[in-house]
């Protein structure tokens, strides 16, 4: 297992992962939805050239994946791992993704913009992710002319990414804030500060398993470091609130608290049939129990692995064939049991 799932980063009891994404376009080629097929090929060649000729410069090993060559399940596996967006998976154009060996770096080509450079780290590591993204951007810039003007900064297909083209986000596990209802206050404050709050799968997804993704909405008018700094500060405050509430909740009624997390563990260890929705909920309870030292026999990395593998495409890839929803629910339960026990 690679990528952020396999590591425990800082503040990992609340922060699952940190992500920085930069949107870039090549100067003399129309944006993906207006470009011709030859243009798409040109973009792919230029970006591949820029990375593979220089990969030793930042010591990473890369792999290029051509979207046209993958079947739907393979594409969905990448989406579930947060390495590509659902948009890229559905893309009709010449498109692909370049992944680093450790899956920390993902460079999507010909999604909404020609380039989406993404760095994904475990836990709270927004600065590290930004530094790496910046390095890659500089590297690409040596051989590629980006669409940029002095007035608006980096030019993007959608004006919501104009300027820095940066999206800084953190994935947070907030069971206590959700259980107490204080999450509503967090959501309101974020709204007022221009911070977007989304569910597990980003845009257009709902909150599941008490997982929330916060990210900046504004990309123009502030420097990149400021934007990253804002997300870090908000995350910091949310972490403190969540931890405080967890302790409070436990203190109010330790027996009820422990009963809840242990019952969920019991289900995970014994169920024969389990849906994605249910397993995500149970996972949240058990993770809470492990974070607080109440459940001791389970390693956090096991929970991370489960979180990844219970998703439908990843699940199907473990058995090497497509499964019906009912079959998936059984295989999912098998997988969970095998890891918990």
């Amino acid at each position, binding site marked *: 297992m690679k990528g952020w799932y396999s590591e425990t980063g800082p503040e990992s009891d609340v922060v699952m992962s940190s992500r920085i994404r930069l949107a870039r*376009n090549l*100067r*003399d*080629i*129309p*944006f993906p*939805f*207006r470009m011709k097929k030859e243009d798409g090929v040109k973009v792919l060649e230029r970006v591949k050239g820029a990375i593979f000729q220089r990969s030793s410069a930042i010591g990473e090993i890369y792999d290029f994946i051509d979207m046209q060559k993958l079947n739907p399940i393979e594409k969905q596996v990448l989406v579930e791992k947060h390495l590509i967006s659902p948009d890229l998976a559905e893309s009709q154009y010449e498109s692909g993704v370049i992944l680093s060996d450790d899956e920390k770096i993902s460079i999507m080509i010909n999604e*909404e913009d020609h380039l989406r450079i993404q760095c994904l780290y475990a836990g709270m590591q927004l600065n590290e992710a930004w530094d790496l993204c*910046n390095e890659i*951007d*500089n590297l690409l*810039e*040596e051989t590629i*002319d*980006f*669409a*940029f*003007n*002095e*007035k*608006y*900064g*980096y*030019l*993007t*297909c*959608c*004006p*919501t990414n*104009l*300027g*820095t083209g*940066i999206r800084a986000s953190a994935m947070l596990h907030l069971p206590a804030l959700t259980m107490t209802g204080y999450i509503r206050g967090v959501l309101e404050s974020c709204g007022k500060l*221009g911070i977007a709050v989304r569910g597990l799968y980003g845009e257009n997804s709902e909150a599941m398993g008490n997982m929330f993704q916060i990210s900046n909405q*504004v*990309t*123009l*008018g*502030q*420097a*990149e470091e*400021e934007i990253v700094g804002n997300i870090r500060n908000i995350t910091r405050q949310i972490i403190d609130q969540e931890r405080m509430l967890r302790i409070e909740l436990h203190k109010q009624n330790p027996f009820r608290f422990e009963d809840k997390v242990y019952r969920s563990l019991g289900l995970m260890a014994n169920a024969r049939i389990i849906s994605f929705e249910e397993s995500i909920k149970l996972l949240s309870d058990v993770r809470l129990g492990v974070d607080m030292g109440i459940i001791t026999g389970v390693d956090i990395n096991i929970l991370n692995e489960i979180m990844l593998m219970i998703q439908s495409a990843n699940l199907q890839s473990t058995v090497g064939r497509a499964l019906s929803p009912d079959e998936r629910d059984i295989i999912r339960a098998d997988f969970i049991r095998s890891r918990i026990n």
Partner: protein
Amino acid sequence: MLCQKCGKRVANIQFTQIINNNKHTIYLCEGCAKEEGKFNFGSPLNINDFFSGLMGISQKSTVSPQQTELICSECKMSYQDFQKTGKLGCSNCYTVYGEKLTPLLARLQGNLQYHGKIPGKLYSAVKLSREIQKLKDMLDKAIKKEEYEEAAKLRDQIRSLESQEVKG
């Protein structure tokens, strides 16, 4: 009606400012309008341009400029297409649509001054251009304050930087 600033002269200039869907209208006489100096309504508006623009509008027919279709020469996307999809077609679109984008961008992004990273290759050109702009703003102020010696110095500095720009 009388000027809303001095209350003495007849108001023959109407300013309407629309920010985030809020409309503010004030009525001024020519004297007070001139006194107000540069009008920062999101786009740099020179008083002379404003007056001549006013003259133009009152003499021409009532065909509004927005009715001419704006089409990008590079990707052939029209402004109407953009309004439907919310997406721009290529880098050139930003130049072609220019001022029309400003209100939308202001609503989406707030502050429209770019403060972020500059690509390495363009760094010195952008830095030079910003320096020139800064001097031009200082020149404007010096003229208004009637500090003509200072203005002349600035004008020379601008000229020398601009010749660097052409070479570089």
